[in-house]
């Protein structure tokens, strides 16, 4: 609709147009647009979500639903590295809780929090499709398998 001046991240305009052009229905571009924004700003700012809704001519709530549903999207600012620990059934049975406790102890943060140096943000997530090598977690794009509290110490050192 005309007359909506959506707040979109500067510099992404062009890429947005390219993405939208690939879809028959504009609204189909929602997920890729969200990925693009997160790649660009690290998280999805509320005003930008509203901007995207205006841009795609869909209700704002549709965008918020998607953005909050996927744990891979951050709706708040996060640290440089995002840790997602799977707490679904297979991982849970394989002592995910101990792994998670270890991370919390080392980083001194709880779920949803960011370390004071801004290095890590910690979340739990549901199944990430690595049940055969449970327990598993992701740090940014990388997945780690068959975790133990000992392994955690080493992994975190890498960042």
């Amino acid at each position, binding site marked *: 609709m005309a*007359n909506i001046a959506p707040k979109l991240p500067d510099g992404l305009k062009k890429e947005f147009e390219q993405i939208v052009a690939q879809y028959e229905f504009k609204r189909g571009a929602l997920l890729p647009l969200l990925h693009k924004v997160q790649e660009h700003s690290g998280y999805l700012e*509320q005003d930008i979500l509203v901007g995207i809704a205006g841009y795609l001519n869909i209700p704002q*709530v549709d965008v*918020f*639903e998607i953005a*909050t*549903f996927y744990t891979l999207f951050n709706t708040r600012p996060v640290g440089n590295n995002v840790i997602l620990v799977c707490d679904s059934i297979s991982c849970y049975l394989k002592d995910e809780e101990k792994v998670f406790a270890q991370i919390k102890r080392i980083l001194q943060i709880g779920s949803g929090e960011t370390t004071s140096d801004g290095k890590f943000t910690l979340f739990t997530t549901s199944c990430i499709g690595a049940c055969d090598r449970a327990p598993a977690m992701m740090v940014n794009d990388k997945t780690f398998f068959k975790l133990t509290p000992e392994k955690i110490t080493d992994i975190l050192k890498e960042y």
Partner: protein
Amino acid sequence: MSDNLVSLTIDGIKVSLEKGSTILDAAQKKKVYIPTLCHYPELTRFGACRLCLVEVEGFRKLVAACTTPATEGMVVHTVTPEINDMRKTVVELLLLHHPLDCLTCDRGGDCELQKLAFTLRVTGDRFGFKTEEYPVDDTNLFIQRNFKKCVLCGRCVRVCDETRNVGALGFYERGFSTVIGYPYNKLVNCEYCGQCLSVCPVGALICKLSAYEARPWQVEKQRSICAYCGCGCSLYLEHKKNNLVKVSSEYGMGANNGLLCVKGRFGYDFVGSEKRLTSPLIKVNNSFKQVGWAQALGYIADGFKKVIENKGAQSVAGAAGARCTNEADYLFQKFMRAALGTNNVDSSVRLEHAPSISAMLGALGVAGATNSLAELKQTDAILLIGSNITASQVIAGIYVKQAVRQYGAKLIVIDPRSLEISRFADVWLRPEPGTDLALINGLLHIIIKEGLQDQEFIDKDTIGFADFLQSIKEYTQQQVEKITGVPAGQLEQAARLFAGAKTGSIVYGMGITQHSQGTDNVSALINLSLATGKLGRKNCGIYPLRTTCNSQGVADMGVLPDYYPGYTACDDMDGRRHFARGWGVDLPDKKGLYLPQMLEAAKEGKLSAMYIMGENLLSAYPERKQVEEALCALDFLVVQDIFLTETAKMADVVLPAASFAEESGTFTNLERRVQPVKAAISPPGEAKPDWEIIAGISNACGFVMDYAASREITEEIGRLAPLYKGINSEVLGTDGVFWPLDDNNKTGKPYFSMSDFYEGKGRFTAVDYQSEAENSEYPFMLITGGILFHHGSGAMSNRTKGLNYLNATGYVEINPEDADRLGLVEGDLVEVVSAGGKIEVKAKIADRYRSGIVFVPGNFIDLPVNKVMQVKADGASHMPAAKLTPVKIRKVT
């Protein structure tokens, strides 16, 4: 067995029903009970709650009855120990985080979860662990959201998205954290219709306006009709001890299919306002004195008699609003005509759709929407012009939105404003304000030029095509683009879309009628229907959007100076004889004065007494000064209303009337559906139903009106008014009937066939656009209109807590560019000045309008925008038109 049927067995009972139905449909058809929670009729099948699990022989697992298609030969069991256990577990899981608050929950006794727990004997939570804390949102006066109680059935989300097409709610997060959420924790685009409340099965969404007023078993429910707009929604008035405590509705009922808007659902408390008039008042030495009915009626009879003796019957006049029942309206004009002997009787229809009446009577011989509202959903192409439909006739607006989103209709919106409905348009034309006629003629020009007209229909079913063809010759794309500012390409697109569709309807509002060429505008729209063959059959019609609950009815009842009930012309001899015989008196043979003429006559001293019923004329009339001067000049003024309005304050006698919730009778909605209105409670103090008051005055004047109940008036109307022939309380039932009825059709005609029109034909009318001179001293164009949260001139809606909470005062809406230029920021006080007057009002900056246009809502008693508006009469219909007024804007410093 026919191809599109399937048969199956449920608990040993054979059912056959349409293919595509679910097991649940089949069970419901045979009244086999299957518990459900997330299922709701007409919403998409959701299958989320798993309460409706059933066993199907040959299937490995239990399946959800609400989503599983019924197939041939299926054998279904709905009661087995396993199913019972599953259902119990589902409820126990729901109770994990559901507080057992039933004692104090507003939904106690009316809660689906409570019923399920009771039926399945679930006593509490078996699992003993608590999930997370959920928020309670109590920030809003209307709706409290308590997500601890939410069972995530998603009905609210679906109804808001699929039915209302608003999309204010959604599911946020996932897993245990899932909540019903909204952007920024605010209901950004919520329209406060409360539909989500009405579908919520539990106490997660509570209407705070009515919370804790009553337990479900303490209230009585009276089905009736909404008192606001012309959609005529059916609703329940829930009352306890003579107080309205709530308005509710039920899926499927009435013209509204159980939907209501914010006004209908939450705007009822004016009924219980302390400011209601409770006793007759007589003005003595400029102040009102309470008197008894007998004294008031005697005083009025003397007052009218004196004027008539001195100056003749033509020196009195009556004007009625559009909020009273047909029965009151009918008696009102009967009183003026038969008891006082004058045709000087008019209604506020003069201010909204008089042009529709004159154009439609001229071209078709009927005055009213030709088709029903529900048909809009099935129409292939809808042309919507001059209406903010989603604000002023919400349910009609919903049907248009549903037509587009759920049924794939094409929508053409013609309006300079950026409106909520514009978002749904396939083509949106934004003509310069006031140039609609040129635009419609332009569309017709294209249709003819490209040969898109329905020539067969034109030849067979219409008259006057040749003259009409001449008249649109000059409306070439270039010419029309120049006048309207709409690019030729868009014009072509719209013309092709509408002409090319199999079925199409035209829907228009007061943007079309409130114009000095209002009648011509409507005629042009009728031409468009005729040229494209989109009239006289199902899903092809023309809809004037009437503004008030009985706008259609008050005109049908002959509260018009030129027509008796049912549009029998006053100067038609046979018609006059018919009514003279029916009423047992001689009737005046000249047509009476139109409302604007009444005001003129009063100022000139030719009119000396007036009787005004149910209208705050001072606010409703587009030029306030006219009314002030006219009413001041009268010798005698009687005003009958529910509040001491500004108009009532000017009266010599004020009569306290019943509100819609206290009066019985009928309203006729904008689709010609005559519907029963039923009193739920009794009026406050001495107030009485309008019809009783009129009968009282008439009796005091010596013209006997003897009715025991409004029902008897309904019957008299059914006997005398041709259009209402055969309508009486039995025929009306609960859903009402579409006029006219005929012998073999007792529910009336939802749509007109060509044979229902005068001589079975549609008449083309040649109409020509006249441009208006620009005025550089007043560079802005002022548009007035209604907003979602209020109605009419605000007499009822301004006196409700809920609607005022949403929007308490008026404003002037200015485009950001103009605001910049004038150095205005939101909230600045500005003066809006026209050649006629000025008002001071706060500025609201918004980009719905183009630069050069400002908007002031006409819905607020304390913002008399009619001090500024300037009237230009539409010659054909005597409409005092004032949609557009040239103004200038000044910042008040």
